[in-house]
């Protein structure tokens, strides 16, 4: 008998590696769910008002706004294009555009469709540049600044109040006692999860993110995927913008200041791999709830803004280091 080559057992691609990767994936899900659970447990034990229904509703409402943006960026991240730094400006611009259209007396459905189509174009333009080889961070940074500047010029840095009540139900309605934003977020979460796991497009996104060259070799066009994911990201951001605009009856340029960071935080806390190919919409949704709940808990504990930011930063670094460690252990040991 010939002894099996000892090196062969540790060759990448062997079944035990697949098993390890699968178990590290399960560990990631477990960690995300556990951290949300622990956070709520700590909140429940230390801060009674944290678990009151009115407060929980606040958490899911603010989590919903971050979450909708984060779901859009999840597509970008999973496709291996890192993230988009223009979502807050896209959302704010959508809010402004919507406020303008409503103040001109356009019918609500037309205004909604026009804003979403506009976002689609802006997103596709960014995706196009990325598809040609542009760095996603830089392209979206540039587009974000251009959108912000354009928005400043259009509004002269003022708040646009539209005084049109047609969209009020969209911003303040509470079917079954839950805010419309939250319904939209749950709805989008399910759609995104189904699209990512059950459709050809979703599999293509993950495949391109996991290995761009292998995907290209098997007939998927990474450039087309890039255009699609950035369009999705811009549309998700503009949906958040539409809800915000409808809620307050206005469009403001600083509506989402700092929210791209929160959205990206949600994705990273949800355990998505920034190099692409690994992550899920539901985990991003949980990540958004985690970030919103963490912030809410710290507000109730009267932590100042700076301390709250600091801990969000720490949460990101901890999550990223931990998930990165899990993944690298699954691939290399």
């Amino acid at each position, binding site marked *: 008998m010939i002894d099996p080559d000892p090196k062969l057992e540790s060759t990448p691609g062997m079944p035990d590696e697949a098993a390890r990767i699968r178990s590290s994936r399960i560990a990631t899900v477990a960690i995300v769910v556990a951290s949300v659970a622990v956070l709520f447990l700590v909140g429940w034990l230390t801060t009674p008002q944290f678990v009151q229904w009115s407060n929980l509703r606040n958490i899911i409402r603010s989590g919903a706004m971050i979450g909708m943006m984060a779901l859009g960026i999840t597509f970008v991240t999973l496709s291996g294009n890192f993230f988009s730094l223009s979502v807050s400006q896209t959302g704010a611009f959508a809010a402004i555009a919507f406020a303008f259209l409503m103040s001109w007396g356009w019918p609500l459905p037309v205004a909604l469709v026009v804003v979403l189509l506009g976002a689609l174009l802006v997103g596709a333009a960014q995706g196009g540049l990325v598809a040609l080889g*542009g*760095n996603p*961070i830089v392209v979206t940074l540039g587009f974000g*600044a251009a959108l*912000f500047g354009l928005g400043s010029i259009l509004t002269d840095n003022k708040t646009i109040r539209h005084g049109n009540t047609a969209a009020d139900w969209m911003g303040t309605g509470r079917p079954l006692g839950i805010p419309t934003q939250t319904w939209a977020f749950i709805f989008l979460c399910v759609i995104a999860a189904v699209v990512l796991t059950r459709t050809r497009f979703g599999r293509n996104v993950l495949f391109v993110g996991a290995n761009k060259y292998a995907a290209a070799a098997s007939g998927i066009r990474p450039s087309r995927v890039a255009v699609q994911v950035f369009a999705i990201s811009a549309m998700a951001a503009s949906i958040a913008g539409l809800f915000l605009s409808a809620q307050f009856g206005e469009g403001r340029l600083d509506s989402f200041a700092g929210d791209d960071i929160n959205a990206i935080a949600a994705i990273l806390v949800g355990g998505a791999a920034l190099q692409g190919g690994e992550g899920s919409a539901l985990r991003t949704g949980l990540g958004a709830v985690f970030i919103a709940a963490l912030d809410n808990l710290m507000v109730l504990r009267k932590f100042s803004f*700076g301390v709250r930011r*600091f801990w969000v*930063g720490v949460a990101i670094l901890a999550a990223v280091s931990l998930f990165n460690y899990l993944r690298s252990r699954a691939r290399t040991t």
Partner: protein
Amino acid sequence: MRSPNGIAPIIRTWAAAFPGAAGRAVRRIPPITWARAGLFVVVFLAFALTDSRFSRVVNVYTIFEGFAWLGLAALAVGITIIAGEFDLSVGSAAAVAGILAMMLIGDLGLVPTILVVALIGMAFGLVQGMLIYRLRIASLVFTLGSLIGLRGLAFMISGENTVVMPNLELAKTVKQQLGIFSPFSLTTLGIFLLVGLFLRYHRYGREIFAIGGGRNEAIAAGVPLARPLIIAFGLSGTIAAITGALLSVKSGSAAPTGFETLLLPAVTAALIGGVSLFGGKGSALGIVTGTLTIRFLISGLSLRGAAYYVERLAVGVLLIIVVVLELVLDRPELRARLRLWRLRRSMAREARAG
């Protein structure tokens, strides 16, 4: 419409007119560098020829004041981009440094304060580089965490308020006009000279280019990845801290919300200056040129009375233009792909016709 690949041959024919050694030197400069130098000259001339106020000593002094901080920030980000990484945290690091400077300057005086803050920035940068190396995390993700964490720190140490400098006289020392320069802009130029020489001629500086251009090849050739990586982030942290400290001293106060929009103009300046997002390419002189291009544009626009937010639109649009320029001029394989695509389309058309 002329196709973008028409520009390179024109420049080549033009460069061929130069004889001897000068011609060889001219021909060695790639088309994208010509495009950048052209942009620099065109933006300058566009304002200098149309507005007599533009080239006055006071305005040139103002341009250099703007250059002083933007250039430093661009250098900080640029070094990490050259190393094939990306430091998103420079804005937050500058904010923390500014607040530290305001707190220390009453006791220490001007120069020691800047030095101490620079050392703190260096220590932070070195630790950040070490962690990125050890944990093998993409620097983009890691510095996103420190971008948020440091911002929080800035709020914490400042008590959420703007910190005012106790001895406001020092602000005048930093920005006093010496011809077209000030101590601030001269310091910046000095830093550029030192860092530029280090990057260009020192072995450790060359290693930063090596790991940026072809990381696997560099490692195979024996470059220790840890050293250039940690040095690049150390330099980035140091320079970001100096930016924050000097600019806060100059304005006499530091706010915890400061420098939040620093990243955009800094990256734009670095990219216009020829730092390649693919890593391994760029120079200190290039970053000087890129920064000045932006400052010319902003100065010219504000002389015309444009609102401050037009600046941001202009810088954003400029960034997009530079990305597109780099894509079409600097990527031979893309041009090849474009040709292939055209060929395939025309063949398909013929096949359909025949």
